[in-house]
């Protein structure tokens, strides 16, 4: 545990003691702000039946943050260590492979969480101006965060795996982005296959991230969504561990 915490601190330092980390957060916040600003401009003067804060997840800005930020956050995790030669030093240190993988994943995940924290103030701010007289309901915000974190954990785990597979940060980011986008595009299957009956329809609905986020933003927490993201995250981290271990038997 001690080793894990030391590694975690080291990884967090890489994010928060460099300008890069803050640039990533600023970039994400620009997209976040743009998303809300575009919605405000589009709906100003209109009456809608769902709060503006619920509509944000449906915009391209939300998914752009998830799809672009996670590869950028994770691309350096293993690839940079390999490229600079510090990977071997790390691997020969008295720490387990599992601890290394978990520490890197946790650091990236915590950074991702910090990146999304301003969303709460955005939601509060927009609600203040757009839903006058109505109490701000924090519970949907809590569930929205749960959704964002679950999706983020999966994408970060994919990023970890991509980063572990190569020594080039660009290739790692591209691989992670491609896999992430493919997974995201699966959501669109729901609109065709998902409306029929049968196994394919069930799978399309079960894997639709749109559906999952729709539930989360409305304050609905479904154990199926949680299990889906946690198991996929687990698989990706397990594969990352195997890739890291592979240097021993190559």
């Amino acid at each position, binding site marked *: 545990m001690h080793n894990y915490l030391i590694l975690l601190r080291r990884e967090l330092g890489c994010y928060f003691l460099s300008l890069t980390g803050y640039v990533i957060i600023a970039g994400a916040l620009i997209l976040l702000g*743009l998303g809300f600003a575009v919605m405000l*401009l589009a709906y100003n003067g209109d009456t809608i039946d769902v709060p503006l804060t619920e509509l944000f997840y449906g915009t391209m800005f939300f998914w752009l943050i998830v799809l672009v930020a996670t590869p950028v956050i994770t691309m350096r995790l293993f690839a940079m260590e390999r490229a600079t030669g510090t990977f071997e030093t790390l691997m020969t240190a008295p720490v387990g492979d599992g601890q290394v993988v978990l520490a890197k994943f946790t650091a990236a995940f915590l950074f991702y969480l910090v990146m999304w924290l301003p969303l709460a103030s955005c939601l509060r701010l927009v609600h203040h101006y*757009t839903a006058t007289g109505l109490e701000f309901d924090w*519970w949907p915000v809590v569930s929205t965060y749960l959704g964002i974190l679950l999706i983020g954990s999966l994408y970060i785990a994919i990023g970890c795996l991509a980063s572990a597979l190569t020594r080039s940060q660009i290739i790692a980011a591209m691989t992670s982005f491609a896999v992430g986008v493919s997974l995201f595009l699966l959501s669109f299957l729901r609109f065709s296959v998902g409306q029929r009956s049968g196994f394919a329809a069930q799978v399309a609905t079960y894997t639709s991230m749109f559906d999952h986020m729709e539930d989360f933003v409305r304050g609905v927490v479904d154990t199926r969504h949680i299990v889906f993201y946690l198991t996929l995250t687990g698989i990706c981290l397990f594969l990352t561990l195997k890739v890291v271990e592979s240097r021993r*038997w190559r």
Partner: protein
Amino acid sequence: MAAQDNVTSGFSTWSRVKIGLNVGISIVAVLALAAMINYLATRHYKRWYLGEQALTRLSDETKRVLAAVTNEVHITVMFDRNNPLYGPVMGLLKEYRNQCANLVVEHVDYKRDLARAQTLMTRHQLAPTETDLVIIEYGGRARLIRDTELSDYDLTGVLTPSHEIKRIAFKGEALFTTAIGGLLDQRSPRLYYLQGHGEHDLASTETKFGYSRFAQLLAQKNIQALPLWLSGTSDVPEDCQVLMIAGPKGRISQDEVERIGRYLNRGGRLLALLSLVRSGQNDTGLEPLLAAWGVAVGRQFAFDRNNAVVGGGIICTNFSMHPIVKPLRGEAIYVVLARPVDPTTAPGQSADAPRAEPLFATSTEGFTASEISESGVPRSNPVRDRHGTIPLAVAVDKGSIRGVGADKSATRIVVAGESIFLANETILKASGNLGFANLAISWLLDRPTQLAGIPPRPLREFSITLPKTVLWRLTWILVLVMPGVPLVIGLVVWFKRRR
């Protein structure tokens, strides 16, 4: 030297194969485990509803009905995506689907998927104007729910300059659950239509007077329509949920009227469509009975100077606040040579007395005429005829509490001074005719068992009316100030570490 070479060669081929096999098996095992966990998760799951969204939770009644669904129920949402009810309908049906795996929900956007929409229209014999509806099918039977049925409205804004009519509640759950329950039950509500006096024929496809389109509407609502002759000794059957008298030509005998009266006294439901054109300007015999229930049916023709159509027709847009016609605001009902039908309920009478309310009427420029010349010109009799708003249909309710679903023993009557407006050709002439038929039947059938006691869900509305200055201030905060803060912190950290 040879020994040194052996040491640097690493794992033997066999060891590599063994490790590879080991890793391969462990990966397959982990994937299989994940698949199993997900499979179990889909079968045994829990949904929590946090905060105000508890409103999206299904009622126990709906859960009970859905638990009884053992075969596939196909629900087609034939809605335009821009319809304000599209979101609530799809959201609710998603909850239904989560509750019951045997539900298949399909969305057909009739504006985009023309071929599929056409197939549905042909299969369910829908008119081209009949769109924005939910079709629930089970075991070869179908139930159609139109968007006009799905909302409760607040009409207080009608009197304001904006004439705004607000949707205040969504009745989807009560209607969908009732429809699914009705389809599973296999027993359909029974509507008897009186015969023997030259009434409209529900089997006739003749355009002017045939009622086959109305019969289709009943079939879509899963209502069994049966003919009824009261000329013998038979009474109105016990299982009669609605009795319809559609445009009798001949006089209904006193004996028959008494039987109908007994039926109404025991909580019967009556749809009376009385046309003076059909009865040859004579009374039908029902008038005294209806008078006893608070409805005066005149023996004149109603006209409207403001909304006249050639041939004695009127386009009615003057609707009351009654639940039958509330959803028809903004639409029109087309009637031809209608009789005036007035509510005669006196104010201050006992609570259990019949309450008669007008449904639709002419404009303030309406008038009645006792006679019409051969050339079709109305001739008013100053003694018998009148000017002003002339009601053309009335609803009577006795024994139910206002705003609550009707009690089993509550009597309900809908009387319209016209019957041709629901005939095959005319029913499609104005958007409100079919809507009126649909809503009147729904109101007459409204019983606790039908509505399943599920209250409508209040609809939330969010008006975004930001002044330009506030809008731009907010935009700057969101796009510049918020991203600027971490950037400044980053620069400070970078600068400090550089030093």
